[in-house]
């Protein structure tokens, strides 16, 4: 499960989206492929973002290569597009998009990019970190994290229950043995007392 790129665009309906920032994580591709992959990713992101309506969450899957492009355009005209593989859960991708948008607004206020017409590179270091962090959706997304922890807990608890069952069996065994023991000791006592009381000769 991988995230390949996060791209931010200024979307104006009717025009082509203007690139504001894009970060890549292409370690899975061979060194010479990376250049073309970057270009294709940029193209796909731009096109998809351009065709997404405001407030709509789109996940476009390309069935041949098993890659998905998730995009959203918010009301201020800022669009974000994330490219992942098809195993990556869409929900986490959209959470990532939401966080990226927030981060971007923190660093670059709207006035900075509202009037831009051509592609720029507005650096946002937080995006790189997010990209790295979200390579592992289970740890990054709190819901999945919770689910994972709960699953582990359930496994452990089930094992515990099984062990308890074994303990129960052993205890039952012990109980039977102690019953026997008490019975035998009583017999022994009676015998000894009888011997002591009635006759003195062996």
């Amino acid at each position, binding site marked *: 499960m991988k995230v390949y790129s996060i791209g931010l665009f200024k979307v104006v309906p009717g025009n082509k989206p203007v690139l504001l920032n894009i970060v890549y994580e292409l370690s899975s591709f061979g060194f010479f492929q990376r250049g*073309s992959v970057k270009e*294709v990713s940029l193209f796909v992101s731009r096109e998809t973002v351009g065709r997404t309506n405001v407030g709509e969450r789109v996940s476009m899957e390309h*069935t*041949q*290569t098993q890659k998905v492009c998730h995009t959203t355009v918010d009301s201020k005209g800022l669009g974000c597009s994330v490219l992942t593989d098809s195993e990556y859960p*869409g929900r986490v991708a959209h959470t990532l998009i939401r966080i990226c948008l927030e981060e971007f607004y923190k660093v670059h206020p709207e006035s900075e990019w509202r009037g831009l017409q051509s592609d720029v590179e507005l650096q946002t270091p937080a995006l790189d970190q997010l990209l790295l962090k979200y390579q592992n959706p289970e740890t990054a997304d709190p819901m999945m994290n919770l*689910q994972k922890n709960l699953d582990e807990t359930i496994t452990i608890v089930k094992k515990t229950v099984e062990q*308890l069952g074994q303990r129960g069996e052993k205890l039952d065994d012990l109980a039977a043995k102690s019953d026997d*023991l*008490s019975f035998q000791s009583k017999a022994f006592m009676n015998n000894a007392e009888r011997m002591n009381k009635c006759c003195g000769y062996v």
Partner: protein
Amino acid sequence: MVFKDRTSEFGNLAETLRRKQEQNGTISHKGKKQHSQKSQFSYAAAEISKGVFETSEKLIKLTNMAKNTKLFMDSSAQIEELTFIIKQDIQKLNKDLSSLDQYVKSSRQPNKQTGDHSETIVGFLNLKLSNATKDFKDILEVRTESLKQQQEKKDSFSGYSNTFSSPPGSSHEHPSGNNNSALYKYEMEDDDNSNEHSILMPQELMMHTTDYSSSRLRAAENISSTINQLEGIFTQLANLVSMQGEVIERIDSNMDDSLANISRGHDSLIQTLLNVSSNRSLILKIFLVLIVFIVIFVVFFA
């Protein structure tokens, strides 16, 4: 109730009255004029009522046709024609009725009764016509509804075929210098982002929209059901542990019993050993036997 048809008598009476009036020339003339007026009026009213009746019949036919339209039975041409005809009829009837009304108002009736009568008739025809118009409007509304539904059904049926048949847009192939050809080959077309959840575009792309909230909901529900499971498992755990606790208590009491028993037995055995190993009993026993012998000797030999 026996009734007798006295219209002939009435007719005769009317005749006699008329003849009497005929004797006064001008009055009869007016009467004739009135009569002709009346007949003209009644003739027009009869025309209008016939028109209304016919229109309402056509309306009924139109209702049936509008209700019967299903997806593939398309009698819309007929319906359109009928609608047009009915509209024309209604307009003509309206015009006739208004002209009749004008006529009634303008021409002064000698009798108040006839005036009232004609006004009532006009009002009645008006009412009938307005009813017919209302029904017509309802029918038109029903028809537009059914048309809309038909359109929706057609859309849902032909949605797939539309996207399959629409020609692809520009196909972009990325020029790359290496032997490894471009990783993506896209044939993007003009999307139509409809409200459906996933659209199958020609064999290359699949688009999902608006799944975010429902997937989050599902994830949250999963988590809550997992937690419920955990609750069940922990309850079972507690039950098992308590049952085993009881078993352990039983074991404990058994051990205590057996300890007590064994210690008592041990004590008595020690006692026996002491008894056996001490000399006292021996000496006692020997003396006893001796005394018995002595007594016997003494008794037998004394």
